[in-house]
């Protein structure tokens, strides 16, 4: 089923959860709604499911207006973050629930229900657990049973709310590969909510990045990772270094360092900007070299394999800024760098965005760029 949502707005008191969001979900794709806690992704999913109603805007399912139809009528399968398996029913009864709730005329016979449930349990590879109760299952098993239960009613679209959020790292990895394979077999249109960029990049056909109730960017994983549309997307999908400064003449000026010519049409002389560069896009040049480059001090140096990862402290006007670089070990050795050495960095690739003011939130590099996405420890935090 194709889904189109058109200028959806949702307000909780003074908090704007969704701010005129318009999106298209083509049939058969596995789409990730990615964003930090409170960005509105779960609210959007619940509005698509019919568990929540939007203040304004429309939801179209297969081109038909569905804003006023209830969750029962929408033919969606919903998988909850905490599974919501019925505790007093066996695994079998949980999966059979949707079939038993069908109107008498459409309800399959008992033997058909039994066959169908065992098919689904086979599909999630847990047929041997049919007579157990949910309390006797591990988190990963419960998640798969919840998925089987949602699939039992043959939904036109599958919606998953933080499907792997409450699982430990190893199980998450297994389950998301398994979900990807399942999707490739069933080709059912699916949308899943996640705050884990790695999960979104690895599993989804398409990623919708959200922030503050708005869509920041959408595209294939390759597109959003390689061509982020905003500093936020840069920051949210992987490690990034931010350089903030002003355009002077035709040069991108960070402090008294010239980062290169301004080739952005959005920026005029005098404008503030934020320039973004991934750690592996930085190059190191000698501190005493006359060629331009931002002067920094090596605060930490890790070597792994043929690469070195450096944490670099800004100097002078850039004091307090932390940069991260990933360079071939040979260039570290060529410069004889150690912790405490001074060096200059140059960006081999740089994306420049206009910035409102130099003290914008994102203008400061995170202290530990790797931990931008909340780790598994935070995974069970509830998404508003």
């Amino acid at each position, binding site marked *: 089923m194709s889904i189109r949502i058109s200028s959806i707005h949702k307000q909780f008191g003074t908090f704007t959860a969704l701010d005129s969001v318009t999106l298209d979900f083509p049939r058969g794709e596995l789409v990730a709604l990615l964003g930090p806690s409170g960005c509105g992704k779960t609210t959007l999913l619940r509005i698509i499911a019919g568990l929540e109603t939007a203040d304004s805007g429309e939801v179209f399912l297969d081109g038909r207006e569905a804003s006023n139809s*209830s969750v029962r009528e929408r033919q*969606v399968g*919903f998988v909850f973050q905490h599974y*919501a398996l019925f505790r*007093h029913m066996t695994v079998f009864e949980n999966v059979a*629930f*949707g079939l038993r709730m069908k109107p008498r005329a459409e309800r399959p016979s008992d033997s058909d229900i039994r066959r169908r449930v065992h098919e689904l349990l086979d599909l999630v590879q847990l047929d041997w657990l049919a007579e157990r109760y949910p309390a006797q299952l591990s988190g990963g098993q419960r998640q798969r049973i919840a998925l089987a239960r949602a699939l039992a009613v043959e939904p036109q679209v599958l919606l998953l709310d933080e499907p792997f959020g409450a699982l430990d790292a190893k199980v998450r990895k297994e389950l998301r590969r398994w979900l990807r394979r399942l999707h490739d077999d069933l080709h059912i249109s699916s949308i899943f909510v996640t705050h884990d960029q790695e999960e979104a990049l690895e599993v989804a056909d398409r990623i919708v990045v959200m922030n503050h109730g708005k869509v920041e960017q959408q595209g294939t994983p390759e597109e959003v990772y390689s061509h982020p549309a905003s500093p936020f997307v840069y920051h949210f999908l992987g490690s990034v270094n931010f350089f903030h400064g002003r355009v002077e003449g035709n040069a991108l000026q960070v402090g008294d360092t010239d980062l290169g010519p301004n080739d952005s049409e959005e920026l005029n002389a005098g404008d503030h900007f934020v320039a973004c560069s991934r750690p592996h896009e930085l190059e190191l040049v000698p501190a005493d070299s006359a060629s331009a480059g931002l002067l920094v001090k090596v605060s930490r140096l890790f070597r792994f394999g043929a690469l070195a990862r450096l944490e670099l402290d800004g100097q002078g006007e850039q004091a307090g800024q932390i940069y991260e670089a990933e360079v071939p070990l040979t260039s570290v050795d060529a410069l004889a760098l150690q912790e405490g050495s001074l060096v200059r960095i140059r960006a081999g690739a740089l994306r420049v965005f206009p910035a409102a003011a130099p003290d914008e939130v994102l203008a400061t590099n995170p202290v530990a760029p790797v931990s931008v996405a909340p780790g598994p420890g935070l995974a069970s935090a509830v998404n508003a």
Partner: protein
Amino acid sequence: MSLPRSRRVLPGFTPTLLWTLIWLTAVVLLPLSAVFLKASSLNAAAFADAAFSPRVLASYRLSFGASLIAASINTVFGVILAWNLVRYDFPGKRAVDALVDLPFALPTAVAGIALSALYSPNGWIGGLLAPFGIKVAFTPLGVLVALIFIGLPFVVRTVQPILEDFDTEYEEAAASLGAGRLATARHVILPALMPAVATGFAMAFARAVGEYGSVIFIAGNIPKVSEITPLLIITKLEQYDYAGATAIAAVMLVVSFILLLIINLLQARVAARGSRHA
């Protein structure tokens, strides 16, 4: 003790177990065994005469029958009340919530006098019902009304916390699987509440069986019609027939114990289904 020593995470198993046994013996078992001791001073014929005369048998029927009916009615309406208090916000909710506990706090005699004043043929409600030929006061129906009154809080107070913890996710899951509101209530919500409902039922029933003060005013105490067993015990005591009174009490104790045991076993079975661990 010859049991193999195993380290327990929580300290204090032995002292708390000892104290539980001592306390139960002193507070519950000793007085109860006194009842049986006293009753055993009668020979079989005298015991049967005291405990199984037609008048006494009629009182058992009324006491246990009305208690079961009252507990059942309280179960149905207690669940509805708890649902309303947990799920909806309305002005005066706190006051309604406090009102539920009133039957706990009110001296039972006060409740009895108030109820008989209301339901007697010239009372507010009794006057309204009289033209339809419905008599409440001084009939078994009056006994039932009093027992419903005093048993009301039990089911509400046992179901309320369970319902508060019941995540709406389960209802949303049921709805997304195509279940209507009624089906959701029947197949998802009620089974989750069952253990608490059963506990509340048992407590309301136990309270109703033992109730005296609020019933005797409204019951009218007509022999074989609206006479409850506790009243018969008191009557015998007033006639200094201590052995006869304890004979009735002993029968009541045994029947109550058996009924509560059955309810508890049923409840344990229901509860086990929901939380079986590997």
